[in-house]
């Protein structure tokens, strides 16, 4: 069997995982119609009865029968979960009791009218969010929906019917759902309507006559049929994709659409979503933030637009660039966009038209291989958002007073000046004063200063004095010019200041982010990550925050948080963690909470939640963006910390496995060889009677030799085991280093017999602090190593000396030296030189290193000039040797 025939195991695994995840999540079935009255609820109830008969555990979460008898009859007998009552402005509203259904955990729940808006106080503002939570909990859901409530189709419906659509459901909710079209020919529907079989609320009744025109219905029917057809397309494609293991996107298309503070953006977004649906490709919504200051309403519109983009399923990017085209293209290139969608310039004024035109031309010129799609954007409902290009700086009373004061002062100065200079120079002085004022204060005071000074100049200085009239044409022109210059100058200065401030804010954000990233990069533990996150949030936003982290899927508040979470807030955090969505204040999930809860998410998993107690009234887009970036960064580092820990454990495991394997190999060889020698020698002694005394002695010597070797191997193994388990703790005492060398040499006399050994030692006792036994082993191993790796007859030199507060013990030989490639690894466990003689476990030098390092010392190996190897042990001797007085 060739490898090519086999399915790629990784791909297979991820496919299975996807299927399992889908299995775990509940399935959504939508009974889909073109408009109210086609019988969606009825169809849903019929389907539910079939499921009930088939033995499925189902409950009715919420059904709106509008009092119709046929529907009521169908709903009767189905198990119900009582609705939850909400009091709102004296009215009692009943809603789906989400928690009750979740607690009941049926296999299937019926929840009518997906686009419904919940009563204030419910967990989510929208019912589709309730349904999403049910699905996430693994509960299947039947629901109903009309085509006009689908976000991306809402615009078209409005164009066709002229009716405003307020309640919409994001297209993303329908991804993966089964759509069952409940169809009724328009003529029949009109008939049912006339027979009064269609329930309509009173306020809709008037609009209804217009809405239910047959031409409208035909258009709506076509719209819903097309949507359902497209949707089936997604299903089959995905199915086929699964079988054939191809990429989820059939095409490599990627659409990019710019999002600005214009109400036109919303329509453009819907259009792009439809197109992305058609192409089955990903799409990006990009906002390029510039230094221009937006009015509050424009800012709100921008945030609405971005929220819409997210709901429609776009990948939303925000970037900062004063060059709109440059920013768009940069993101486009980074994300491999294939098409950029732009709206046709439809501005009202010539200026706006000119700007739009210029933008298009630049895009066309610079977009390179990215295609450009220009579409006609319908004007939305938001109303034109006037752009302010002047900063609305709050001008306090002091600023106005300051402006007036400066003009007054300048006036007085000018009075003195006029005597020598004539009436025109004061004008320039006034102008200078206005510019200076503009440097200090906001727009209002600047205008005031400009106007005041102009009038003052005219009144007090220009002839005729003390009159607002001007005699000479020359002066009139000067006065008019003065007025214009003063105001333009003031504006320009104010604008520069505003840009500066915006720049500074952006700079602050960039710095905050940079610092955070830099600090985090060094974080090596969860605690450090949390500490940096809390500190940075506190520093940048002056807001207390808490971090809850998951340990074995249980959330626990981290002690470093500067905010204590109440039980209720903890519940919100838990929800945000489980659902992997932002929750609490400023969100659509549990908006009644006091804090803003952001999950710490990576693609791999959810690590916990960052909860921020926000003091201000609202959270701006930039602030939210920065907070989300913080949370994402922190999650990435948490992920890295976790992965690194896992990798470290895996490495240790692998190393210990390798150790055991090598140990076994080494033991089997190192123990068996001497065992074999001594066994055969002993049996030879026992069996043969005709041995000469010499042969007998030789055999006995073999046995002794083999056993000595065996003893040494076992000793080495035990030493390594002790070192591995960290049990080696030197017992330091004063010793004569010469005694150490001499005793070691004496005990190894037999082993060193074939090498002339010279020792170079001081004449007087060399008192050093060390563990005699450990160092005797270390030095002994160096000597044995030298004897084993050098030809018989070559000398071995041992030295002991104290210098610079360190004891140096060195063993030098005149053998072949150490191969360069072996030098860095020579002290590694089980490392054996390629030319090493047999016998030797590869542990001797490791033990030397271990024992020496247990003393806080170092051991090194090098090649001697003139041939041979030199091993040096350096032991620190921080204590001065005690003086032993002569008697």
């Amino acid at each position, binding site marked *: 069997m060739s490898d090519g025939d086999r399915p790629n195991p990784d791909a297979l695994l991820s496919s299975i995982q996807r299927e399992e995840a889908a299995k775990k999540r509940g399935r959504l079935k939508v009974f889909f119609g073109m408009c109210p009255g086609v019988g969606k609820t009825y169809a849903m109830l019929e389907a539910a009865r079939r499921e009930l008969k088939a033995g499925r555990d189902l409950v009715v979460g919420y059904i709106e029968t509008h009092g119709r008898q046929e529907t009521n009859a169908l709903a009767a007998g189905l198990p119900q979960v009582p609705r939850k009552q909400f009091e709102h402005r004296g009215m009692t509203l009943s809603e789906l009791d989400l928690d009750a259904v979740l607690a009941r955990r049926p296999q299937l729940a019926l929840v009518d009218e997906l686009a419904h808006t919940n009563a204030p106080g419910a967990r989510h503002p929208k019912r589709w969010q309730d349904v999403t939570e049910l699905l996430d909990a693994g509960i299947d859901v039947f629901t109903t929906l009309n085509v006009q409530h689908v976000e991306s189709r809402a615009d078209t419906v409005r164009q066709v019917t002229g009716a405003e659509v307020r309640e919409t459901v994001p297209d993303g909710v329908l991804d993966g759902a089964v759509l069952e079209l409940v169809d009724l020919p328009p003529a029949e529907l009109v008939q049912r309507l006339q027979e009064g079989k269609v329930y309509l609320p009173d306020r809709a009744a008037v609009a209804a006559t217009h809405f239910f025109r047959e031409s409208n219905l035909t258009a709506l029917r076509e719209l819903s049929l097309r949507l359902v057809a497209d949707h089936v397309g997604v299903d089959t494609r995905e199915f086929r994709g699964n079988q054939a293991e191809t990429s989820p996107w059939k095409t490599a298309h990627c659409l990019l659409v710019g999002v600005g503070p214009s109400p036109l953006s919303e329509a453009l977004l819907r259009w792009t979503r439809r197109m992305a649906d058609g192409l089955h490709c990903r799409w990006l919504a990009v906002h390029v933030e510039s230094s221009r200051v937006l009015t509050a309403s424009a800012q709100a519109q921008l945030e609405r637009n971005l929220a819409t983009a997210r709901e429609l399923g776009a990948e939303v990017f925000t970037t900062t660039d004063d060059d709109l085209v440059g920013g768009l293209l940069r993101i486009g290139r980074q994300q491999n966009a294939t098409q950029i969608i732009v709206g046709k310039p439809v501005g009202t004024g010539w200026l706006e038209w000119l700007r739009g035109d210029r933008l298009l031309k630049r895009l066309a010129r610079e977009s390179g291989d990215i295609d450009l799609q220009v579409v006609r954007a319908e004007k939305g409902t938001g109303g034109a958002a006037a752009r302010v290009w002047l900063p609305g700086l709050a001008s306090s009373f002091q600023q106005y007073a300051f402006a007036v004061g400066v003009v007054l002062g300048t006036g007085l100065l000018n009075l003195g000046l006029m005597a020598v200079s004539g009436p025109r120079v004061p004008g320039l002085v006034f102008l200078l004063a206005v510019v200076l004022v503009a440097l200090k204060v906001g727009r209002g005071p600047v205008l005031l200063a400009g106007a005041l000074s102009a009038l003052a100049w005219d009144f007090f200085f220009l002839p005729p004095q003390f009159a607002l009239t001007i005699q000479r044409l020359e002066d009139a022109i000067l006065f008019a010019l003065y007025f214009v210059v003063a105001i333009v100058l003031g504006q320009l200065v104010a604008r520069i200041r505003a840009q500066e401030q915006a720049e500074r804010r952006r700079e602050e954000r960039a710095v905050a982010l940079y610092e955070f990233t830099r600090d985090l990069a060094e974080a090596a533990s969860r605690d450090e990550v949390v500490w940096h996150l809390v500190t940075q949030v506190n520093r940048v936003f002056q807001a207390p925050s808490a971090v809850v982290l998951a340990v074995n899927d249980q959330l626990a508040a981290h002690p470093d948080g500067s905010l204590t979470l109440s039980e209720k807030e903890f519940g919100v955090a838990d929800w945000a963690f489980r659902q992997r969505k932002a929750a609490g204040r400023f969100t659509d999930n549990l908006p009644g909470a006091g804090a803003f809860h952001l999950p710490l998410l990576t693609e791999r998993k959810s690590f916990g939640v960052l909860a921020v107690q926000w003091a201000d009234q609202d959270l701006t887009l930039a602030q939210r963006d920065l907070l989300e970036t913080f949370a994402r960064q922190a999650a990435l580092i948490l992920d890295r910390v976790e992965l690194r820990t896992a990798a470290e454990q895996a490495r240790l495991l692998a190393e210990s496995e390798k150790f055991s394997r090598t140990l076994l190999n080494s033991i089997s060889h190192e123990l068996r060889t001497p065992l074999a020698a001594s066994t055969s020698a002993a049996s030879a002694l026992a069996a043969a009677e005709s041995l000469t005394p010499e042969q007998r002695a030789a055999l006995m010597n073999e046995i002794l030799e083999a*056993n000595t070797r065996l003893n040494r191997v076992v000793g080495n193994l035990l030493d390594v085991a002790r070192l591995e388990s960290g049990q080696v703790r030197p*017992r330091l*005492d004063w010793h*004569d280093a*010469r005694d150490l060398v001499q005793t070691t040499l*004496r005990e190894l006399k037999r082993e060193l017999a074939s090498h002339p050994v010279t020792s170079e*030692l001081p004449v007087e*006792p060399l*008192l050093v602090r060390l563990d005699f036994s450990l160092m005797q082993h270390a030095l002994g191993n160096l000597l044995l190593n030298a004897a084993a790796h050098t030809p018989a007859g070559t000398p071995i030199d041992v030295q002991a000396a104290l210098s610079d507060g360190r004891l140096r013990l060195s063993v030098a030989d005149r053998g072949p030296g150490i191969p360069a490639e072996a030098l860095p690894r020579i002290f590694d466990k089980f490392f054996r030189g390629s030319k090493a003689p047999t016998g030797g476990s590869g542990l001797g030098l490791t033990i030397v290193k271990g024992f020496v390092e247990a003393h806080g010392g170092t051991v090194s190996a090098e090649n001697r000039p003139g041939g041979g190897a030199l091993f040096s042990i350096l032991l620190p001797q921080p204590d001065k040797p005690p003086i032993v007085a002569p008697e």
Partner: protein
Amino acid sequence: MTEQETTKPGPMALVIDDEPQIRRLLRVTLAANGYRVADASSGQDGVVQAAQRKPDVILLDLGLPDLDGLQVLKRIREWSRTPIIILSVRDQEEEKVAALDSGADDYVTKPFNSAELLARLRAALRHGQPQGAEAIFRTGNLEVDLSKRVVLKSGVEVKLTPIEYGLLRLLVTHAGKVVTHRQLLQEVWGAKAIDQTHYLRVHIAHLREKLEANPSAPELILTEPAVGYRLLCQR
């Protein structure tokens, strides 16, 4: 239990070791060298045998299954001065030193060679005899007259300082046996100096300088790592 007395005349050795192979081996080795041998496989049995058989020397393994070797030693020492030689393995230095300081006479480290073991046994037996050491001690080319306090190296008198002589005297009276650091420090400098090991290092070095044939390769006063010193006994 397994004791089968060899009826040869000679000193009796009691072997207390839980390993049958070691007991068998020692029985053969010791019997071949003129010892009568009794053995015990547990600490309890060892204490009983020591009382009943009144051995001349005891070989005691430190790693026994029932009683700690050190406890067995202390129990026997409560009523008996019989020389005790410890059988230890490597890396039992602390227990070894503790046993020596609690009254054991010497030790051998497993695996031991039989010549070494027999030498230790002889030294232990000699010191166990009531008549005490002879006044004149000879080993190699060294001669020490304990009564006259005269030390001769190859027939030439060597001048020793009082401390050096004190050390040498202690080593000579325990010739062939290990003398622990503690014993030496206590005997020569007094109980207060028990942890002043550097005195010992320096004065032993000086002693070697004066007495050893080749001071750079001592053969007379041997270092027992982590335990003490031993004066080699060559007759």
